[in-house]
């Protein structure tokens, strides 16, 4: 009984707000302003979507976001798989220090690093480029991905790749044929996490992006509610299109997500 009560309350609190904006994205401005929850049928429309997809620059920002987040995911996958394998399988000098160091980056205030970061990107001539945004966003995801994957790789018995090495398999072959199949849930989670964090990032994009060339959906949506007369129907449509990609990916990895997220913390 209590469990059911908690379930119902949670659904209302955590899911209703999302459903509400999706619902309102199909309503006209007039319908929203009647302040009724269930308006008459003529209050529903597809106009909000038609407008933001054809009149505004939203499709362009959406593609920017897709491009940046895909690049972050790709680099993050390669770098963190290699790094986590190195940390999991080899006795490197200062290994513990590196692991604590990676974890401790989580306490660095991003706002403190922002101006120097801006200058680094500037001096690399990467201002307002997809690469520039992606490279800087990597610092948001790499520590967590490496930590998570290392936890995952640690659960794969060392004998497996040691015997493969004796058989003459090189590093690449060991990674592809032995580690990756076993750790594929972890890999999926790393990809998901990288994509979503990059998609959601506001702080770094707001500094590195200077124009429409690299502006993302997150940047767009945060500027929408600033004006006085807000077209709420369109805002809701933009918000819906912003959250839908992350929700679709979430649906795909949902089952593995928990397993992957907790791999690092559960093994001890």
């Amino acid at each position, binding site marked *: 009984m209590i*469990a059911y009560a*908690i*379930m119902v309350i*949670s659904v209302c609190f*955590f899911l209703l*707000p*999302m459903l*509400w*904006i999706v619902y309102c994205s199909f309503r006209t401005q007039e319908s*929203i*302003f009647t*302040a*009724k*929850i269930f308006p008459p049928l003529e209050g529903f429309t597809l106009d909000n979507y038609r407008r933001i997809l054809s009149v505004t620059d939203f499709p362009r920002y959406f593609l920017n976001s897709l491009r940046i987040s895909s690049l972050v995911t790709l680099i993050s996958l390669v*770098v963190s798989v*290699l*790094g986590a394998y*190195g*940390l999991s*399988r*080899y006795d*490197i000098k200062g290994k513990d220090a590196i692991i604590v160091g990676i974890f401790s980056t*989580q*306490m*660095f*205030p*991003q*706002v*403190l*690093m*922002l*101006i*120097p*970061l801006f200058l*680094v990107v500037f001096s690399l001539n990467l201002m307002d480029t997809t690469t520039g945004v992606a*490279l800087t966003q990597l*610092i948001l995801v790499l*520590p967590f991905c490496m930590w998570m994957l290392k936890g995952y790789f640690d659960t794969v018995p060392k004998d497996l790749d040691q015997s493969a090495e004796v058989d003459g398999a090189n*590093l690449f072959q060991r990674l592809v044929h032995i580690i990756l199949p076993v750790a594929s849930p972890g890999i999926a989670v790393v990809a998901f996490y990288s994509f979503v964090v990059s998609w*959601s990032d*506001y*702080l770094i994009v707001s500094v590195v992006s200077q124009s429409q060339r690299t502006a993302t959906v*997150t940047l767009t*949506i*945060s500027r929408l*509610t600033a004006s006085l007369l807000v077209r*709420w129907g369109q*805002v809701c449509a933009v*918000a819906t299109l*912003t*959250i839908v990609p*992350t*929700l679709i990916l*979430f649906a795909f990895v*949902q089952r593995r*997500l*928990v397993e992957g997220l*907790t791999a690092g*913390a*559960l093994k001890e």
Partner: protein
Amino acid sequence: MNRKNAYLLIIPALAIMCAFTVYPLAEGIRLSFTNASMLRPTYRYIGLGNFKQMINDRVFWLALRHSVVLTVIVVLLQLVLGLILAWAMKQEVPGMAAFRSVIMASWVIPVAATVTIFKFMAQPDVGFINIILRSIGLDRLVRYWFGDPSTAFACIILLHLWRNVPFYGITFLAAMQTIPESLYESAEIDGASPLQSFWHITLPGISHMIMVMVTIHVLWTFNNFDFVYLATGGGPVDSTQVLPVYVYKQSWDRYAAGYGASIGTVMLLLLAVYFVIYLLIQKKGEYER
């Protein structure tokens, strides 16, 4: 295995982290001892000048207090509510599996979207919250919830809870599922109440996960910029001003890069003290085991 290979493997990660994390951080700390400004090309070292200025900066102290209070309240509430949610999700009742699979949705959507959703819901005229309040006759409560100094801070707390409590619940649940069922069975035979077994079996069983979640969320919440900046910008009248937002405003709106950096350095110091204490506790825990 060959040790040289190992270094090659971690060098890409270390290089990126050095160029885009360690170096900017060191530069940020260096800037905090200067009078750097975005308005002029040159600057000089002024020793502890910025930190002296901070002592008399009323807004800094306000932001510091808000940051600490926000972090403590948010993490505590998330912990308690997360435990309750995890307990509920562990009950095998019809519909629970579906519930478990969708509940983390609020955690995966962008914070900017979350803020937009709640800003819309908090609107005085068309907001869902106020529509409901009016319909049950509480018209006097109707307001723009983020625009009222007496409610804005609570709204920020609510945003954090909305995003993170399901994440806590799901991770705690995963930890609970590693506790052998036989422990509960024998406790039941010994006559332990459900509350007793929760206290003596479940909590110790997931203590490590609790430690990790609390530690990481203290760091994340204290450093969080997006929620406050996007929802209220620190206002109204500084009622939600927190350190990350204040640093950003000093650096980018008032062009006081040096002073902004010095406040950032204070944030780092506070978190470093917290982090070292965590590491010591963790070391001690391992030693005792």
